[in-house]
């Protein structure tokens, strides 16, 4: 038994036109007609779509539906809800948490789906073939009609005749019919930001050219997030904007010897200015995102003070955002960015030895040197060493992380990933250690000022104490983690991957 086939009409088609195309003995009857509005939702990256799912809202019924491999119940839809945590808890919000985390889901396309089930009947008025017309009308989608044509058992001949008739109506067969294919065939444009983690580096490329090319790409990537910051869609836009600028800055300073001192100075200063504009906003975002985390640390009697603190921070965040938005829309900002691109695009100066070195060779040298430095610095850290040294080690680890991540394509991504996994254990530990001190510092900043209520102060002090204890605990794990990362096995792995033979490095 053949199953249904799916067709797309290149021009709109009506039941009357279908009947006309059929042989006389068959007629076409409209069974019913219904239509519903449909809003396609996703985040900036199209995470839901990329995972094979589809999030849609029906504005009339006020329902939000996530279609994934298995069936999950719909939830009420309201345009104000843009994050998984704003939805009623349950399967749908759980899945969105997995797929989107901190990203907001926003309307991507709006359309109406008109469904028209038809019956092809014979002279006994017996249904011999079923046709379901689906028309997609969209504001930003071209209108298009699709048909699902289902044979009825025992009526194969009539099915064939119907298909022949429909082929006269300029239709083309399509693969299947879920809403995703329908939307795609109807012209939905999937446009995630460009975030490829590969730079298509040539191992022999001279370092100066390679570094400028990479740093420029990062700035281009960062700029993709500007609009989302302006629209304040979610906190990830600022975050990703900053991450890319920071990567660009680190790359420049890691390879400072490949650049002329004028170019280096200009790039360093300007990238720093670019990044620092969003410092306040990001700090406030981080604090606000951690609301639950902070509240869990405090006893009930200190919660009122905490509420006051958060109200204050939210106000400050609104102000900080305004400032960022204004600066992004400023002509001066545009000029800065233009200048940065100019700096990246200038012809290489080839002033230093390093500027002309093949990039692969230079990176290999740097990775080994950086690992050596971490081993040496780590070696002198014990339980009593002042925090300063631990913070410095964190920064050195971060540099190594950048080197490994940014250039993994030159050394085999799989092998490098393994090394990153080793590094990550130590980094996570150092990162938490640092987070606690940053949080304490942020909180102590909040405790200054005449307007601070006694309740707020009590909450802040309570939190600071808890954080201090957590930091002590984290500190107690550092030595063991350093030992793990500097163990002979890991050393060997670094040697194997990065100690290039002369042949390779030439």
């Amino acid at each position, binding site marked *: 038994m053949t199953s249904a086939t799916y067709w797309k009409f290149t021009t709109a088609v009506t039941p009357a036109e279908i009947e006309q195309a059929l042989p006389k003995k068959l007629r076409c009857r409209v069974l019913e007609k219904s239509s519903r509005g449909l809003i396609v939702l996703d985040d900036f990256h199209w995470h839901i779509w990329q995972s094979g799912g589809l999030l849609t809202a029906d504005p009339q019924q006020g329902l939000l539906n996530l279609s994934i491999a298995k069936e999950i119940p719909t939830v009420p839809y309201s345009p104000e809800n843009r994050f998984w945590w704003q939805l009623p808890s349950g399967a749908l919000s759980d899945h969105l948490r997995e797929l989107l985390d901190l990203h907001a889901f926003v309307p991507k396309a709006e359309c109406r789906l008109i469904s028209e089930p038809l*019956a092809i009947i014979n002279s*006994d*008025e*017996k*249904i011999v073939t079923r046709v379901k017309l689906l028309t997609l009308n969209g504001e930003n989608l071209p209108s298009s009609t699709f048909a699902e044509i289902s044979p*009825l*058992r*025992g*009526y194969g001949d009539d099915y064939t005749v119907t298909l022949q008739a429909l082929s006269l109506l300029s239709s083309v067969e399509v693969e299947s019919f879920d809403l995703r294919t329908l939307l795609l065939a109807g012209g939905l444009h999937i446009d995630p930001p460009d975030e490829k983690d590969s730079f298509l580096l040539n191992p022999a490329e001279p370092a100066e050219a390679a570094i400028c090319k990479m740093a420029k790409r990062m700035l281009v990537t960062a700029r993709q997030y500007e609009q989302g910051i302006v629209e304040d869609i979610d906190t990830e836009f600022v975050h990703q904007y900053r991450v890319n600028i920071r990567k660009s800055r680190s790359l420049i300073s890691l390879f400072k010897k490949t650049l002329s001192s004028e170019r280096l100075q200009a790039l360093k200063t300007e990238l720093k200015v670019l990044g620092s504009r969003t410092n306040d906003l990001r700090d406030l975002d981080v604090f606000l995102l951690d609301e639950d985390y902070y509240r869990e640390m405090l006893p009930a009697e200190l919660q009122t003070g905490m509420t006051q603190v958060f109200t204050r921070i939210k106000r400050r965040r609104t102000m900080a955002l305004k400032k960022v938005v204004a600066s992004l829309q400023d002509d001066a900002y545009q000029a800065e960015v233009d200048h940065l691109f100019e700096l990246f695009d200038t012809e290489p100066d080839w002033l230093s030895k390093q500027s002309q070195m093949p990039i692969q060779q230079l990176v290999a040298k740097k990775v080994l040197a950086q690992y050596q430095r971490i081993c040496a610095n780590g070696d002198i850290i014990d339980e009593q060493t002042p925090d300063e040294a631990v913070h410095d080690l964190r920064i050195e680890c971060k540099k190594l992380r950048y080197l490994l991540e940014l250039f993994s394509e030159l050394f085999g991504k799989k092998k490098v990933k393994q090394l990153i996994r080793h590094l990550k254990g130590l980094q996570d530990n150092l990162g938490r250690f640092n987070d606690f001190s940053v949080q304490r510092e942020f909180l102590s900043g909040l405790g200054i000022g005449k307007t601070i209520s006694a309740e707020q102060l009590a909450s802040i002090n309570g939190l600071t104490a808890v954080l201090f204890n957590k930091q002590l605990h984290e500190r107690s794990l550092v030595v063991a983690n350093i030992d793990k990362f500097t163990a002979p096995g890991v050393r060997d792995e670094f040697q194997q991957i990065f100690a290039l033979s002369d042949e390779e490095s030439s």
Partner: protein
Amino acid sequence: MKVLACYSIKGGVGKTASAVNLAYWAAKSGYRTLLLDLDSQGASSFYFRVKSPVKKNWGKRLLKAYGEVLKQVKESDYKNLDVVPAHLSFRNFDILLDEIGKRKNRLSQALKGLKKEYDLIILDCPPTISRLAENIFNASDIVLVPVIPTTLSERTFEQLLKFFKQQDYSRKKLLPFFTMADGRKQLHRETATAMRKRYKYFLKHAIPYSTDVEKMGKYRAPIDIFARGRLANKSYFALWKEIESKLEG
């Protein structure tokens, strides 16, 4: 897979009307249902607007292999419901059965192969007590017997009981129910009461006399399609629910 026959020795008692509406409700309740129109008159085929291709004597093949049955299946206009239309050659079932051999489980064997595709087979039977009838009794899990509450019908039902006893069929297969019951007629009321007393296994639900059943001929559809809210429709639905509980039990 269960097999349900709508059977009576007597003609015109509502076998076909019952087969059609019960098949419809079974399908609507989610049973993958096949209605096999064994009556060469083709009444239930007519109600479902299906026709048999003009092929010679496929009745003979029907009795030989289920593969032949599957070839004749027509999908109805309703979800889950297929129909095997009647064929003129079905007139000669009895002769055929004689030719093929005296085995009484030919039909049963032909139906067995349908197990994978259907949950329920409903047989609309011609009014006969013959070799075909024996095949039907053998193949069926339940033999539904429409009984008009009149003296004459009571007698035919008794004949059927006797036949079952003689042939050693399990009486438990028999599920009689009243059709065309007319509450205004004293005779109907009295006969029904008396029979229910004697035969405790009569189904609780009865089908009243109703022009809506007759109208099936005009609309060529189950009653639910054109007289949804009417008593006859509700009665067939209730009857189906009662039968369903017996199928499950």
